[in-house]
C-alpha cells in the first residue's frame, strides 16, 4: 500500500511539473478570528498560489503581535488536467496589547517581483473572548513573598501542568531584572489532582534576591511546544494522497499543534530594611544565620602561624556576608579568600561562608581573640539580630623567630606577590671540580669501541664456536678422533727412540695417525692396501707413494730385525713429520 501511494504521488508530481508555474503567483492572508482576547493565541495563514518554491512571506504591520511560524503545508490539485500548487505558511500570533489593529499585507518576492496579500483587521480586547477551553496544558508561576526586603530571598516557582503529550518544549524564563537569581533545586516532577483531574506537574524553583527597593515586575515565563492531540486528526477523503498521509509511515495519528503558554507577570514590592535598630557594621545580610569560630591550635610559639576559622551558616544571602575588621593586639593577621558552599534548606537557599585568617603572634603571653559579631536582618521577625562567636584564648610561648615571614592558612600560602626581578647576572665561578681534562683521547675512545663492538661480540663468537664444536662432536663420532690425530702424532713422534723397537713404534705411529685422521682401523693398514684406502681420501699421489714407501720400510725393518740407529731415526722422524704435515694440508683443503 505504501509503495503504491508513493508511486502515485511521484507520478502526480511528474505530471504536474510541466504545468506548474504557469499560473500567476498570488498571496492570500487569512485567519479564522477577527476578535481575540489579550494574550489569546490565534492562527494566521499565508497561502502562496502558483509558485513551486515559495519562500517564507513577511507579514507587515504585525508589531502589536508576537508572530511565530509554526509550520508549512503544500497542496497539489489536478482538476480536468489543469494542475495547481499552493503552499500555506502557518503562523501563531499572540496580541501584545488591546486595540484594533490592521495586520498585513503578507509580502513575497518571486522572480524579482513583489506580490502582496490583502490585510486583516483584528480586534484585541481585554480578557478572553471565548470561554476557556479545557486545555490539557497549563503553566503557573508564583513567589513566596510579594513584599520582600532588599536582599531578602524569595522563591520563584514555575509549574507546568500537563494532561496531554507535548513535544519539543522550550521554556524561557523572564529576565528577572532587579533580582539576583540562583538555581534553588533541580527540576521536580510529580502528579496532583486539580478540578477533579489528575495532572502531571513539572516544577522548577529559583531563589531571587531583590537588589533595589521599589515596585518590580517579574515578567511572564513562556513555554513553547508541540501539543499532540490524540484522535482529533481529521479523516481525509479516499484520494490516494489522503491514504498516503494517513499511512503509518508518518508514525503519529494525532494532530500536532504548536502552542505557547505564558505565566502572568508577578508584581513585587521591595522595601528597604528598616533604619530603626540597624546595628553598626550591618552589611546587608538578611535571613537567618549562626556563626562559630575556632583556632587550629590554642598553644603557639611567637612567629608561628595559627589559623582562625569563622563559619557563618544559615538561610539567606550568605554570599554577601562580610567579617568585621579584627583588631587583635599582639597578633598579625593575614586574610585568606573566603569559601562559600551553598545548600538548600526547607526550600530556601542558604549555605556556609567560611573565612580563614592566619594569625601570627608577635609576642609571648596570652592573647584573646574577641567575640566576632555579624549583624543580620531577620525578615520573618522583622528585626535585626547578631550572629556571634565566643571569644577564643591563645597561649603564645616565646619563639626563635620574631615573626614567620610566610604564614599559611589551611596549609596554603597567603597574599602571594609576583617576584620583582631587579637584576640579573651569570652564576659565579666554581672552586671545586676536576681540573684535568675529561676529554677522551683517541686511544680511550677506540678501546671502548673495540671492547663494545669487537671484544664482546668475539666472546659471543667463541661461545658460538664452542657450541658448534660440541654439536659436531655429538653428530660425528669420528670428529674427536680426527681433530686430535695430528697432536697425538706429534707427541708420539717425540717418543720414538733409536732402539730395537724404533721401526715398530714408527710404523704404529704412522698407521695410528692415518687411522685417526681418516677414521679407519689404522693398525690394520699394510703397504699393499694403502693406495686402496688412501686414494678415496683425495690425497695426492706423492703422499700416497711416500706412505707406501714408509710402510714398506717399516715392514722390512720389523721383519728383518733391524735396529733404529740415531741418525736413521732423525731422518725417519723428519720424513714422518713432513708426511703428516702434507696429509694435514691435503686433508684440510
Amino acid at each position, binding site marked *: 500500500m505504501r509503495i503504491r501511494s508513493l508511486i502515485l504521488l511521484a507520478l502526480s508530481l511528474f505530471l504536474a511539473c510541466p504545468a506548474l508555474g504557469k499560473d500567476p503567483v498570488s498571496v492570500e492572508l487569512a485567519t479564522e478570528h477577527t476578535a481575540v482576547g489579550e494574550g489569546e493565541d490565534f492562527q494566521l495563514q499565508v497561502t502562496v498560489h502558483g509558485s513551486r518554491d515559495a519562500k517564507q512571506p513577511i507579514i507587515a504591520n504585525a508589531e502589536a503581535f508576537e508572530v511565530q511560524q509554526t509550520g508549512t503545508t503544500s497542496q497539489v490539485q489536478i482538476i480536468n488536467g489543469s494542475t495547481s500548487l499552493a503552499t500555506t505558511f502557518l503562523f501563531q500570533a499572540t496580541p501584545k496589547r488591546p486595540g484594533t489593529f490592521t495586520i498585513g499585507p503578507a509580502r513575497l518576492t518571486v522572480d524579482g517581483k513583489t506580490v502582496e496579500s490583502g490585510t486583516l483587521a483584528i480586534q484585541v480586547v481585554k480578557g478572553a473572548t471565548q470561554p476557556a477551553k479545557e486545555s490539557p496544558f497549563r503553566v503557573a508561576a508564583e513567589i513566596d513573598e510579594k513584599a520582600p526586603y532588599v536582599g531578602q530571598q524569595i522563591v520563584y516557582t514555575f509549574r507546568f501542568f500537563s494532561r496531554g503529550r507535548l513535544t519539543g518544549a522550550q521554556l524561557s524564563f523572564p529576565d528577572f531584572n532587579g533580582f539576583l537569581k540562583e538555581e534553588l533545586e533541580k527540576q521536580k516532577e510529580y502528579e496532583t489532582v486539580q478540578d477533579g483531574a489528575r495532572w502531571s506537574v513539572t516544577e522548577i524553583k529559583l531563589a531571587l534576591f531583590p537588589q533595589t527597593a521599589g515596585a518590580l515586575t517579574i515578567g511572564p515565563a513562556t513555554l513553547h511546544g508541540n501539543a499532540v492531540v490524540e484522535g482529533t486528526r481529521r479523516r481525509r477523503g479516499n484520494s490516494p494522497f489522503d491514504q498516503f498521509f494517513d499511512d503509518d509511515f508518518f508514525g503519529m495519528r494525532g494532530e500536532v499543534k504548536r502552542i505557547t503558554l505564558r505565566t502572568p507577570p508577578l508584581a513585587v514590592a521591595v522595601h528597604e530594611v528598616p533604619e530603626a535598630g540597624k546595628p553598626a557594621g550591618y552589611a546587608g545580610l538578611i535571613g537567618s544565620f549562626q556563626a562559630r569560630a575556632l583556632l587550629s591550635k590554642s598553644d603557639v610559639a611567637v612567629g608561628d602561624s595559627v589559623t582562625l576559622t569563622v563559619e557563618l551558616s544559615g538561610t539567606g544571602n550568605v554570599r554577601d556576608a562580610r567579617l568585621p575588621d579584627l583588631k587583635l593586639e599582639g597578633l598579625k593577621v593575614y586574610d585568606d579568600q573566603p569559601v562559600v558552599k551553598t545548600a538548600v534548606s526547607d526550600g530556601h537557599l542558604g549555605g556556609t561562608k567560611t573565612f580563614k585568617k592566619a594569625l601570627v603572634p608577635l609576642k609571648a603571653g596570652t592573647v584573646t581573640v574577641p567575640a566576632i559579631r555579624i549583624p543580620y536582618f531577620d525578615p520573618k521577625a522583622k528585626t535585626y539580630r547578631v550572629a556571634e562567636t565566643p571569644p577564643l584564648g591563645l597561649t603564645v610561648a616565646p619563639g626563635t623567630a620574631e615573626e614567620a615571614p610566610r604564614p599559611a592558612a589551611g596549609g596554603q600560602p597567603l597574599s602571594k606577590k609576583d617576584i620583582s626581578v631587579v637584576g*640579573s*647576572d*651569570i*652564576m*659565579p*665561578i*666554581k*672552586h*671545586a*671540580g*676536576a*681540573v*684535568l*681534562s*675529561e*676529554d*677522551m*683521547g683517541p*686511544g*680511550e*675512545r*677506540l*678501546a*671502548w*669501541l*673495540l*671492547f*663494545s*663492538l*669487537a*671484544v*664482546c*661480540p*668475539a*666472546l*659471543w*663468537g*667463541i*661461545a*658460538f*664456536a*664452542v*657450541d658448534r*664444536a660440541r654439536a659436531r662432536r655429538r653428530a660425528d663420532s669420528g670428529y674427536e678422533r680426527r681433530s686430535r690425530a695430528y697432536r697425538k702424532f706429534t707427541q708420539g713422534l717425540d717418543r720414538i727412540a733409536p732402539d730395537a723397537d724404533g721401526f715398530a713404534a714408527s710404523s704404529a705411529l704412522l698407521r695410528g695417525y692415518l687411522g685417526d685422521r681418516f677414521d679407519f682401523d689404522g693398525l690394520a693398514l699394510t703397504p699393499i692396501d694403502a693406495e686402496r684406502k688412501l686414494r678415496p681420501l683425495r690425497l695426492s699421489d706423492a703422499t700416497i707413494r711416500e706412505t707406501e714407501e714408509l710402510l714398506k720400510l717399516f715392514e722390512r725393518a720389523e721383519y728383518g730385525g733391524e735396529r733404529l740407529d740415531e741418525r736413521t731415526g732423525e731422518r725417519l722422524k723428519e720424513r714422518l713429520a713432513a708426511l703428516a704435515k702434507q696429509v694435514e694440508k691435503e686433508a684440510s683443503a
Partner: protein
Amino acid sequence: MIRPQSIRLFLLALWLAAPLARAADPEAVEALAKKFQAANQAFETGSYKDAIAGYEALLAGGAASGVVHYNLGDAYFRDKELGRAIFHFRKAREALPRDPDVRFNLGFARARATDRIEQKGLGAAIEAALPFTEREALRALAAAAALFFAFLAARTLTKREWLFWPELATGLVFALTVAVAAEKALYRPHFGVVTAAEAGVYSGTGKDTTLLFSLHEGAEFSVENGEADWVRIQLADGKRGWLKRQDAIF
C-alpha cells in the same frame, strides 16, 4: 676452541684500554690545582685578565676540564668578551652537560648576542635530549654490550630459553646505547663563535668575493672546513660562507 686470533684481539683491546686505568701523576695534578686556585683568586679580586691568563695556561697545560672552561667563560664574560665567553661555556657544557650553572650561564650569555639565528634541523634538539658526555655514552655502551653478549653467549651455550627475555631487554638497551654513543663519538661538530664586534661572511676567499652577510660578537656557527686565514662556516639556519679566522674562536 679459543683461537689464537681471538686471544690476540682481546689482548690488543686490553692494551688500548690501559690508559683508563692509568692514574694521573699526583704532583702534576697538585700543581694544576694550585694554578687553578690562583686563577680563581684573581677572578674573585676582579683581576679578570689575570684570571683569563691563568685559565688559558691551564688549558694549554692539558687541564681542559669543564670547570676550567666554565670559569674561563665567566672571566671572559666579566671582561666584556661575549664571544669567547659563549665559546668556553659551550666547551664546558660538552664536559658538564647536566650542570645547571653551565646551562644557565650559556643561556645568559647567548641572550646578549646581537644576531638572532633561527635553529633549523634537529642538532640542538638531539643535544638537549642527550645530556651525556662522550665518556658516559661509551661506558654505557660497553656495559650494555657486555650484558647483551653475555646473555647471548649464555643462551647459546646453555640453551635455556628463558634467557631470551633478558637477552631481548639488554639487546634493546645495547641498540639504544649504540645510537647515543654514535651521536657522541662520531657526530662531533666543530663549532666556533664570533669574537669580533662585527665580522663579514663572504662568498669565497679570493679577491672578487661578495659580502654575504655580517655577524656580530657572540654569533655561533659550525665549521665546515678551513684554509690558512679563512674558514667556511654554516649557521644554524643554513646560511654559509667564508669567515676570517681572526674574527672568531674555534
